[in-house]
């Protein structure tokens, strides 16, 4: 590997250099030593990239190729001929062979120039994006608050920590069953309570809007603890003396938060938000165990339904899966682009 020391003449001046082969006796090692630091780093990363390509990109490429074929519900061959982007056109125009659509929006001549083919809460793209945005924002705010509390010194802090972190230990299916039973009219009190307040219908788990809210609350209940844990790690790494200095300088609590806490916690916060966003975009288990994918269809629900729904529509399933991966990739891309210049970096 090339270093400053190398070129500064450990071996000697240009005139005294001997051919590479003579330096180590191995041309490959000599070539590697001649690389810049960046090039050498990439060289070392090559095996990892190759492995990643194999286990991540190869299935994606195969999925994409499958999505360009026709569905074949009969016969031994599960796929028909090449149909180009027909399956993508179908899923983006609300014509896919699915009970709930990926996207079903039409254009009109009058304001606002678009109309929904099916209700908002029955289109997987809107449900997933809505779920991801609302859940991540609320969980971040609540998680920050919880982490702030946990970061303080007070009697019984240990028990408060346990109470806050406990929901994170609940398995998804149990979490789903808790909320399912809570809103079963003959079992839980949730339906009656929310109906008496005029907020929900009598059968909230059968109503897409109500069920969406229930799933959102269930996710926030559990995942805020995850945000709190990661943000707490960030908070605890802040040098306490900075606050003392700020106090002496006359900074208000808000100024201390804005100028010290937030910037220093930002890297941990962004990592936590990124993880939660990816998780929220892939939501499936919670929906399946609470209201079911028919009532609240997410993108992952659609993939599972298309793949295992019974009618063999593998090409449509592949198109939905690939489009879902693109949407998630796009969202992650937004994160990386928006926060690339943030202090502490975003990878």
């Amino acid at each position: 590997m090339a270093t400053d020391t190398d070129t500064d003449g450990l071996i000697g001046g240009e005139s005294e250099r001997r051919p590479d082969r003579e330096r180590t006796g191995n041309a490959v090692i000599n070539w590697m030593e001649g690389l810049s630091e960046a090039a050498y780093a990439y060289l070392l990363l090559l095996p990892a990239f190759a492995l990643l390509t194999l286990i991540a990109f190869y299935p994606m490429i195969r999925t994409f190729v499958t999505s360009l074929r026709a569905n074949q519900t009969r016969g031994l061959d599960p796929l028909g001929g090449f149909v180009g982007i027909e399956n993508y056109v179908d899923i983006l125009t609300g014509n896919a062979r699915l009970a709930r659509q990926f996207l079903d929006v039409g254009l009109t001549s009058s304001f606002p120039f678009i109309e929904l083919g099916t209700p908002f809460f029955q289109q997987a793209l809107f449900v997933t994006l809505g779920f991801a945005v609302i859940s991540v924002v609320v969980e971040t705010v609540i998680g920050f608050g919880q982490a702030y509390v946990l970061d303080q010194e007070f009697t019984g802090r240990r028990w408060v920590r346990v109470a806050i972190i406990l929901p994170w230990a609940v398995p998804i299916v149990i979490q789903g069953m808790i909320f399912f039973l809570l809103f079963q009219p003959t079992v839980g009190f949730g339906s009656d309570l929310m109906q008496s307040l005029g907020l929900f219908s009598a059968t909230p788990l059968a109503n897409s809007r109500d069920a969406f809210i229930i799933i959102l609350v269930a996710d926030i209940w559990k995942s805020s603890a995850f945000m709190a844990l990661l943000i707490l790690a960030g908070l605890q790494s802040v040098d306490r003396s900075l606050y003392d200095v700020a106090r002496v300088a006359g900074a208000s609590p808000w100024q201390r938060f804005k100028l010290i806490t937030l910037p220093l916690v930002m890297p941990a916060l962004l990592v936590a938000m990124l993880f939660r966003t990816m998780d929220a975009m892939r939501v499936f288990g919670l929906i399946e165990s609470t209201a079911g994918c028919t009532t609240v269809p997410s993108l992952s629900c659609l993939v599972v339904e298309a793949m295992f729904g019974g009618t063999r529509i593998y090409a449509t399933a592949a198109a939905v899966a690939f489009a879902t991966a693109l949407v998630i990739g796009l969202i992650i891309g937004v994160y990386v682009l928006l926060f690339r210049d943030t202090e502490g970096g975003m990878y």
Partner: protein
Amino acid sequence: MTAASDVAGIMHSDGDEPSIQQALWDAGLDEDIRVEIQTVVSDSATRMQTTQSALEAGRSPPDIHMMDSGWTVPFILRNQTVNLTERFPDETLQYVNDTYLEAILETARDPQSDDLHALPLFPDLGFTLYRQDLIEDAGYNTDGWGTDPPRWEEFSAAVRDARDQAGLDYGYTTQAAAYEGLSCCTFNEVMTSWGGAYYGGVDNLFTAGDRPITVSDQRVIDAIRMMRSFIAGEEENTLDGYPQICPSAIVQWTEQQSLNPFAGGDAVSNRNWSYAIAETGTEDGFGENLGVMTRPYAVSRQEAQYSDVGGTAAALGGWNLAVSPFSNREEEALQVLEAFANREVMLSVFRLGGFLPPNLDLVAEADASDVGPVARYADVVKSASENAIPRPATDLWPEQSALIYQAVNAAYRGVQAPEVAMNDLESELEQSEAEVQANGN
């Protein structure tokens, strides 16, 4: 062979205790052949996924797949089952064709060639369970209801009065959640009892692609409006003469959730499968006070527009056995299936597990002390088999079923008018059927 724990638990026994395996050996199965069960979950949709994974991968064992009568045909059409018509001895084939319930045989045949590709293990039928004591106390005569059910008007009035007089929370509980059970069974029954059909009568059940779509007919709309009346009383999109008897929660209930209030004594009537008779008809349960019948009706068979609909109805469920074409032990697997097509084996399965025999004449022959309360209702079981209505289980059924149960559930909940929901559904089904015409699949 794949099976859920209910069948797995009776396949083998300790010592000389009776078991299905012993019955198979007694029926002539080679004693070297022992049926090993690969236990799967009881949920039908998950089992379909497991079967699909194994067969798409060409994996074996399992050599014999237990398939729901609702999704056997798609596997047949994908050439993922062994043709039993070609492989069974003539006498076995004749015994099956002559004595098995025809409705379940249709779910095990190739709709194009009519060849048998799976052997029915047991059928199941939808029944209406009711508290005979409460309804009679309310002043209604239930004599003959078992095999000659009343019209919906009389039934709903009786349930309402019995509920009010006994001070119960619920009248009639059934399954109306947005799931397969709504499209295949409970709505299929109600629609049939109104003389309606998905595809213009039972002749078109298994021939996707070139058949009329009749979900927007007035009979179908009226069936939904009646259910809306049962759920919501006198509100919009309901039907006069049908009182509120169902809790609104039925739109998110499946089998067990609808049975619980009835079994707990909080409801007058419940629509369910034969296991519910065994569960509630014991002496510890309602005993002789349990009344069982097929569905009440609104339009008689003579008044119905399409063939073999109208009058009472009982949805057809049940399971078939299919041999995997990827099996390395195909001969042995076929021998096992042949042994299942035996009178004594069917009775053993009935006795040990309570599963109805595919030859329903055997129900009357079973000893009541052996098979429990179901034997008491042998005449109702017979009547149900004569009025069995299968789902249109083609290779397109899974996708069409999802469209149907969503539309019907939305109409039941009142978020869509029945006419609108059924018109939308008609267009969606037309699009689905067009796939067959356009692509042959």
